[in-house]
């Protein structure tokens, strides 16, 4: 059965499944503040009256601010197969230098907390959150940048 690839949230990342994959935020045209998740109506900088926010791709790479994992199944609306053996997932908070912000995400499957360190360089890649009849829900994942890559 073919499943339609659908972003878990519309407008948070590009649809590209390759090197072109990026998180999408918005930037205030008046003060240059960046927002993720996107703000489309008002700039949240209290010193700015900006109302024009344009879509902007976020930096592809950043450095690990911190990380943890989920050893127990989180409650709904997190989706998981109740028949499957629970596999802990790793969460990584990543500092983006150009945007001066920290963005949380799951690590690519197979990366554990033992593979990570604060300050390590990681990059954003397309990932799959969960699959169900007719739909593959897509998301972003953080992946350690191979040394020398």
């Amino acid at each position: 059965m073919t499943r339609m690839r659908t972003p878990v949230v519309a407008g948070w990342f590009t649809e590209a499944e390759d090197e072109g994959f990026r998180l999408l935020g918005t930037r205030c045209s008046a003060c240059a503040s960046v927002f993720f998740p996107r703000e489309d109506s008002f700039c949240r900088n209290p010193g700015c009256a900006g109302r024009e926010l344009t879509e902007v791709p976020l930096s592809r790479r950043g450095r690990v601010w911190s990380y943890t994992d989920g050893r127990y199944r989180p409650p709904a609306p997190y989706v998981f197969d109740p028949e499957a053996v629970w596999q802990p997932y790793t969460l990584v908070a990543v500092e983006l230098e150009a945007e001066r912000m920290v963005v949380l995400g799951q690590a690519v499957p197979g990366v554990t907390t033992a593979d990570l360190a604060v300050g390590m360089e990681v990059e954003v890649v397309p990932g799959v959150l969960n699959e169900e009849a007719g739909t593959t829900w897509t998301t972003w994942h953080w992946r350690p940048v191979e040394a020398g890559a």
Partner: protein
Amino acid sequence: MSGAGDIAVLGAGMHPWGKWGRSFVEYGTVAARAALADAGLDWPDVRSVVGAATVRGGYPGYVAGATFARALGWQGARVTSVYAACASGAQAINTARAQILSGMAEVVLVVGADAAPKGFFAPAGGERPDDPDWLRFRVLGATNPAYFGLYARRRMALHGDTPDDFARVKVKNAAAGALNPYARYRKAVSAEEVAASAVVADPLRLLDICATSDGAAALVLCGMDYARRHGAVDPVRIRAVSTVTPTYPNTVLDLPDIATDSAVAAEPSPYSFRASIARAAYEEAGIGPEDLSLAEVYDLSTALELEWYEDLGLCGAGEGAKLVREGVTALGGRVPVNASGGLASFGEAVPAQAIAQVCELTWQLRGTAGERQIDGARTGITANQGLFGHGSSVIAVR
């Protein structure tokens, strides 16, 4: 110290924390009756009631003030219900204070109660992609302990804290909680027991993370003149209530956010949001951390308690672990923190918690805290932070 904005704590009461399987209304009513009895007042004497709301009790939870007023028996008092997540109790206290200081009410009953389900707190049901609290679960599976784990790992990387340091906080708080009849967990815990408990959110283990509990706390607050007329010549006084929000850009990842603000266009404050909560309270009270006899802080995790030491100014940045290692914050130490046993011994009953912190200050400052009494306690602070940018800190003196 100034005292023009002081209000008096005439009564304090609690329902014991635990998993009792009954309604939050019953817990809150028990705590309210205890606070009224402690104040020596009859319920009809109270002309205003402020309820700290809960999102777990259906409609009665959202209108907690009226729910408790009805349970105690309608008597026509002015009613207010407030919600500010974990900081709801401080908002309720501050609402009562504003009414008293403005002359709207002479004596106010403040009540917070919750009945919590087992396990992780979950967002409200339904498909709600506009709600950041729903999104963090749907997209990331980011539970509350996941954020606590991020903070703990960051401390380890930045300050060299170890899991043993975190365990010391649990051992300390469990020892204090064993002496508190209102605590849910009333037995000593060893560092070995912490280390043997299951990892929930690396590097934190089950015994590093606070449980979710049933519980209730209540206060009877009044003006200083009313207290004197009522025969309370030297009551515990609330001198400051901080209910500040963060400043933009907030650069620490807060629950339930998926990202921080960007600091591209505006420089972050030199003080983190948590530090700004205590600073506002100190400024209002005209005191500093050196004046404290004790502090009650929101130890959602053991590691977070160490952050509060720094945010309250009990030590410099990164020195929190040193304080717990040296016993400075234990009962008998220079500044005991969480003499009540803290969330480690209570578990979290969300809207009751900030009120319960003030109950502990009240008993300590009165000198009636029993086996966990801090000698000569004169000044105490509480600190707490609610989801979605709610600061909460109360300073009480006697």
